[in-house]
């Protein structure tokens, strides 16, 4: 498995991973016989998971690196766009065969992903208005907009933390917690020795957190790979 928390490793340590590298990179090779046959959703799911992890990790920083964040989000959107199947999702009894339905689901999940991202990035911009250092305004004359005291940096931890709750398992409850333990509650942060976040085949993570918001990314991932019962209507709780 190629997934990691983004630790840098020396190339020597990756010798044994070369096999994995070859396996994981095959989906980029259009001439590979398996690519033509395998559903794109499965092929890209590991890269999707990896990108989600990176996004999550990036947002958890007290001051996210905007460039890193934007690049990961854009990459995630590309991957997601490529995961829209023209034919079928991985075979699951409850998955509708109709491409239209699948497209709608993925469209809605894309919208939900966008909504999650939107609220996160929106919070980043709200934080900007938080602390205005008192600064005199500029006079007229020189061109441009006087910035005066541009509000300092991003992300109060206590605001950014709960804002990312929509990507975590504990939802908006985190907003009011003094200590954000979601980092330890979330399966996304299972210690490396126990293996990484269980793949979609292992069943939805949401079973353990009944108060989860249906729009959350975990649900989206599960939907995308069709392991969740799709007849469950979107709505709060369960």
């Amino acid at each position, binding site marked *: 498995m190629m997934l990691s928390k983004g630790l840098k490793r020396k190339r020597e340590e990756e010798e044994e991973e070369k096999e994995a590298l070859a396996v994981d990179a095959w989906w980029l090779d259009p001439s590979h016989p398996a690519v033509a046959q395998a559903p794109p959703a499965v092929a890209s799911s590991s890269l999707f998971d990896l990108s989600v992890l990176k996004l999550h990790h990036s947002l958890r920083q007290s001051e996210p690196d905007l460039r890193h964040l934007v690049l990961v989000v854009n990459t995630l959107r590309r991957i997601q766009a490529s995961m829209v199947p023209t034919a079928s999702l991985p075979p699951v009894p409850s998955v509708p065969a109709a491409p239209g339905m699948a497209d709608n689901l993925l469209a809605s999940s894309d919208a939900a992903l966008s909504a999650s991202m939107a609220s996160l990035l929106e919070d980043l911009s709200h934080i900007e208005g938080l602390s205005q250092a008192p600064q005199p305004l500029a006079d007229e004359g020189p061109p441009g907009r006087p910035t005066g005291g541009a509000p300092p940096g*991003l992300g109060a931890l206590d605001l950014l933390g709960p804002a990312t709750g929509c990507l975590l398992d504990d939802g908006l409850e985190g907003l009011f917690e003094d200590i954000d333990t979601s980092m330890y509650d979330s399966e996304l942060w299972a210690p490396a020795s126990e293996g990484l976040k269980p793949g979609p085949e292992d069943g939805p993570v949401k079973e353990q957190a009944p108060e989860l918001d249906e729009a959350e990314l975990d649900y989206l991932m599960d939907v995308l790979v069709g392991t969740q019962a799709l007849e469950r209507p979107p709505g709060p709780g369960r």
Partner: protein
Amino acid sequence: VGGRGGTDIISTVEFNHTGELLATGDKGGRVVIFQREPESKNTPHSQGEYDVYSTFQSHEPEFDYLKSLEIEEKINKIKWLPQQNAAHSLLSTNDKTIKLWKITERDKRPEGYNLKDEEGKLKDLSTVTSLQVPVLKPMDLMVEVSPRRVFANGHTYHINSISVNSDCETYMSADDLRINLWHLAITDRSFNIVDIKPANMEDLTEVITASEFHPHHCNLFVYSSSKGSLRLCDMRAAALCDKHSKLFEEPEDPSNRSFFSEIISSVSDVKFSHSGRYMLTRDYLTVKVWDLNMEARPIETYQVHDYLRSKLCSLYENDCIFDKFECAWNGSDSVIMTGAYNNFFRMFDRNTKRDVTLEASRESSKPRAVLKPRRVCAGGKRRRDDISVDSLDFTKKILHTAWHPAENIIAIAATNNLYIFQDKVSSEMH
């Protein structure tokens, strides 16, 4: 010299306009300035070498109590001001605050005060019977550094570039979303000249990655983006330069398209040529030369380490794909240089189209030794001293390099070591 927690990792390197001084900034907020010793007639073969001239703490870690955030003291960039008197001045910046430092020499001190004794204590006036004129006596050279300006609270996001205008009165600072114009003498206000922050942050798809003023035209500047585009802006055209005068963008190569296309196209550095006619950009796999008169595509593209193209997934996983390499022109704009992994750095001769890979390491760099060209073998026939792609050390990255403005002297920062190479004869190119 090892430091606690890597605080002596060099984060920026910059020659001054004559090349006499070389400044480095590090992760611990320190600036070290090296000075080139004048060539001695006694040892004509020993061209002036660089010795430590001054060391000072430029930035300290700060804690923003309101937002519970620590502001890193790491020096992101240093830029020298053109020298206008005996003193030297430079701008240094961390993520949020830019500082103007003045560096002066003192090699004389006055002696023979009337009212003070040698230690500076006031004399008993009754003992003063005659007046004397204090005289200046030589003393050991002392380099004094003092902060002259602090330009704070101008940036919400992280500053990635500063650039001094050719008018020598203003400079600009760029963060992820905005570029501000400052007057060097005024610290309590700046003017926003570029703002790419979208009304809704959910629409954010692009950030500013680097920016620089044109070396001769004080109204022109360029900024690069995470999507690989360059925007040349004219401050005379509008007070707000959100609308570019020219947009330089190369269409994506469909045969090389992958999920990582955008990430590897993100420009990590942009530098005008000394002539002012070209721009040099660095993205993850290439360096490109752009002609200011041609927006559609670069006029030259050089592959830095194309053997990494098939490893992008792995490099994405370990975040190396996000590494930001700098690039540099030589004084005559005929050779360009950039860093790579495994402490390798690359030089490309624009005229002969030859290139060379060199290594910055203690083992291969004894004083006055000639650097041996290196080669990375990506499969196929392997020569004896070749390094295979799979044994490259990705923790050893040359992100920061600088070239003397006139001579073939280069400064290479390899993690916490600084290498200065002087070229006597043209290196072998292959």
